[in-house]
């Protein structure tokens, strides 16, 4: 279950509190997955008490965007901490989907990869099994043109990406380099659908033996 809250001493109008929370959560907690199970209890709250004074911030205030950025930043940091602490997780993976025909398509592809048990077990095994990634993209339900799709692993240190598939054509993958990238606690996956200009980012983790052990022994 995901629970959380934000508290600020800024004076924020109710409508702004609602709007900021909604947008911040869409770019953070709604963009993570550990095991694909949605809890009955998930709740994130946002409270603003105005104790620091100053003019009230509403949706039309110049300060609104700045506040929204701060809340979104905090929400992203917290949601990433949740993924890093995923039950049994040994890897933290950032999935960026670009070139989607719609934002919904981008999210669908990212979520499908994030939730694929086979992709996640490959992450655990540090196995550059990009066929499983393509498989997930293909059944996501998004508009996908296989001949326009490119996929790369992105090292956490932002050195050169390892291209796995370019415009539908498999690349001659340097398996040593792939293993080196996947051996780190953290890495990225870049998917370019080549079908538009919408993009999204999501965060996921691997599936390890530990996940099964923890959940075989915890009644919740």
């Amino acid at each position, binding site marked *: 279950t995901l629970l959380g809250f934000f508290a600020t*001493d800024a004076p924020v109008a109710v409508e702004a509190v609602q709007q900021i929370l909604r947008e911040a959560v869409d770019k953070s907690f709604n963009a993570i997955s550990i095991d694909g199970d949605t809890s*009955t209890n*998930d709740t994130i709250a946002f*409270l603003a008490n105005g104790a620091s004074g100053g003019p009230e911030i509403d949706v039309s205030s110049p300060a609104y965007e700045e506040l929204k950025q701060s809340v979104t930043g905090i929400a992203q940091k917290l949601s990433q901490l949740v993924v890093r602490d995923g039950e049994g997780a040994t890897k933290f993976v950032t999935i960026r989907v670009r070139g989607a025909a719609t934002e919904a398509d981008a999210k669908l592809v990212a979520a499908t990869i994030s939730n694929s048990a086979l992709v996640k077990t490959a992450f*655990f095994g540090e196995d550059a099994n990009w066929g499983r990634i393509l498989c997930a993209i293909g059944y996501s339900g998004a508009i996908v043109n296989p001949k326009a799709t490119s996929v790369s692993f992105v090292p956490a240190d932002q050195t050169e990406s390892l291209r796995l598939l370019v415009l539908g054509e498999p690349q001659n993958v340097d398996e040593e380099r792939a293993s080196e990238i996947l051996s780190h606690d953290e890495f990225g996956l870049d998917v370019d659908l080549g079908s538009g200009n919408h993009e999204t980012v999501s965060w996921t983790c691997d599936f390890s033996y530990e996940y099964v052990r923890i959940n075989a022994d915890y009644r919740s």
Partner: protein
Amino acid sequence: RRFVATMPDKTKYIAKSGTYPKGFLINGVSSGVKAKGALDLTMLVSEKPCNAAAVFTKNAFQAAPVRVSRETLQQTKGQGIQCLVVNSGCANAVTGSGGVQDARLITALADKAVLGRGDGGLPSTLVMSTGVIGQRLKMDKISSGVMKAIEGLGSSHEHWMRGAKAICTTDTFPKVVSQEFSVNGQTYRIAGLAKGAGMINPNLA
């Protein structure tokens, strides 16, 4: 090939200090719902009424605290919220109408204990629960836990960390983030807590 799940060092993600918003007090205590005296109940109290909002799971089987907190925000139109009570021993989920009554009782208890409000007024407390599904809350323990939490409320980093620890279930570290930000020359603070390690694929709205 044999695999070993070697967990990365996660202690680096634990906040060592923080800058916390004015006018908020927090505490985490052991109410006894969790075994062995583990921290399992967090209370956040604002000295001033807050404007508030929340997003909730879209799972069709929404737990009692989800239903009650949504009801509270609808009734109050998100105004006048001053307390948040989170328990982590028992999820109070799929507990039927009895579970809803329990969640409402926590709201009423906190409203009365913190704000001195009696029956009949608008609620000002939001509730959250996590933990074991399908069991009723031990309300005697929750009630005494709320009173215990109120006694030790504070605003230090240690208080925020206790609050973060007391909402954890299978989490391996408490999750606290805080920062200061300035808007038009005015400085504000914001802090956030979260818990979650499993059953995580949020669809919040």
